[in-house]
């Protein structure tokens, strides 16, 4: 049995880079899909609204773990073999999009109706209304909950370990297999996650306080 040493720590920190990278992929993908989803949720066309909310309810009603299994093992057996990082990125994107879409829908709807009416009066079309009037205002509201949700994304990348992607949680398991000191190792792994997540939590709270000024 090997004693837990500095090399293990370096290995865990290296793996934490993959956690960060996967979080960024998930956030970028989630934002890219989530924004159109939020716009569909507030669309004037009923069918589009239903489709978007159907997707959101589907994703929010199933565990992320099952989504990961489906995109890795499921698609693999159907002949679309994805490498772990792609499968993990794909499922986290689908997952993040559903939640971000729902968060951002709330932010769009929170823009007062009078703003829509005023921009109607000014003769702006729907696209201009979104770009120049509604989205800039909802952006301000959207930042705190979005930063808060990033914490969820970072934590949920740990699930990518189950399909063999070597990020922080998986690296912890690997180190544990050679040293067998689970309590120490998983405490360290937890501490690294904490260091990644806590600043985001603090930022979310501070931004929220700032946004609520004057209410």
């Amino acid at each position: 049995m090997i004693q837990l040493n500095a090399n293990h720590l370096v290995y865990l920190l290296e793996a934490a880079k993959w956690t960060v990278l996967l979080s960024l992929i998930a956030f970028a993908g989630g934002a890219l899909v989530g924004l159109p989803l939020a716009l569909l949720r507030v669309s004037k066309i009923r069918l589009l609204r239903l489709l978007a909310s159907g997707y959101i309810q589907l994703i929010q009603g199933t565990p992320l773990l099952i989504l990961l299994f489906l995109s890795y093992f499921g698609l693999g057996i159907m002949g679309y073999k994805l490498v772990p990082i792609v499968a993990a990125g794909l499922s986290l994107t689908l997952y993040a999009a559903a939640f971000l879409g729902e968060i951002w829908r709330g932010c769009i709807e929170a823009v007062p109706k009078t703003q829509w009416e005023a921009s109607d009066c000014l003769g702006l079309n729907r696209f201009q209304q979104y770009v120049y009037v509604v989205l800039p205002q909802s952006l301000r509201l959207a930042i705190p909950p979005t930063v808060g949700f990033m914490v969820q994304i970072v934590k949920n990348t740990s699930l990518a370990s189950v399909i063999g992607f070597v990020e922080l949680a998986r690296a912890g398991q690997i180190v544990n297999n050679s040293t067998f000191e689970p309590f120490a190792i998983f405490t360290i792994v937890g501490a690294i996650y904490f260091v990644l997540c806590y600043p985001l939590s603090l930022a979310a709270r501070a931004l929220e306080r700032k946004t609520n000024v004057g209410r």
Partner: protein
Amino acid sequence: MNYQFDFSFLAERWPDFVAGAWLTIQLTVVSIALGFLLGTVCAMGRAYGGPVLRRVVGFYVELIRNTPLLVQIFVVYFGLSSLGLKLSAETSAVIALAVNMGAYTTEIMRAGIVSIQRTQLEAADCLGLTRLQAIVHVVLLPAMERVYPALSSQFVLLMLASSITSQISAEELTATANNVQSDTYRSFEVYIVVAVVYLALSALYRAAFWAIGLGLFARKRRLGTSL
């Protein structure tokens, strides 16, 4: 795409799925109940306790909310057993889920409790309510009513997150799926089936919490409006 879907494994293995779903329900109902109790006590401590107690509760909440559930489960199952405290997978799962639930409940319930104005407590004093009566009827129930939507969606999220306990071989729904797919090689179909079962469970939990809400909150029952 010439993939042939084949759900024939269901004919033979459906009792496994039922057993897995049942264990998921048992695990999550127990951890939701324990986590809710823990969280409510902590929220009271955070709202009314002294500075030390507030610090301790705050530390617990931040610690749990900023680390992944998977790692928490590993610490409880592998970590505690290496320190000599051997727990079964199911017990570890319940402990980890309840501690996790407790942290989120603390934050949600605290928001409800601080929204109850001091004058309400003074009024309860004037009416001669005992300390316990005031806490239950004037603070906790109205606080819970205000945050009930957030609370129940957190409960549903915990039910979904319980799938992670399959990683320490608690034989719940997801672990059942893993077993069946490794026997039949029908992984796509198996996980589709399980996803549908989880969707049904989410709907079931939502309905159950709605009904519990009606039972708990007389105002909502009689007037159809919440606080």
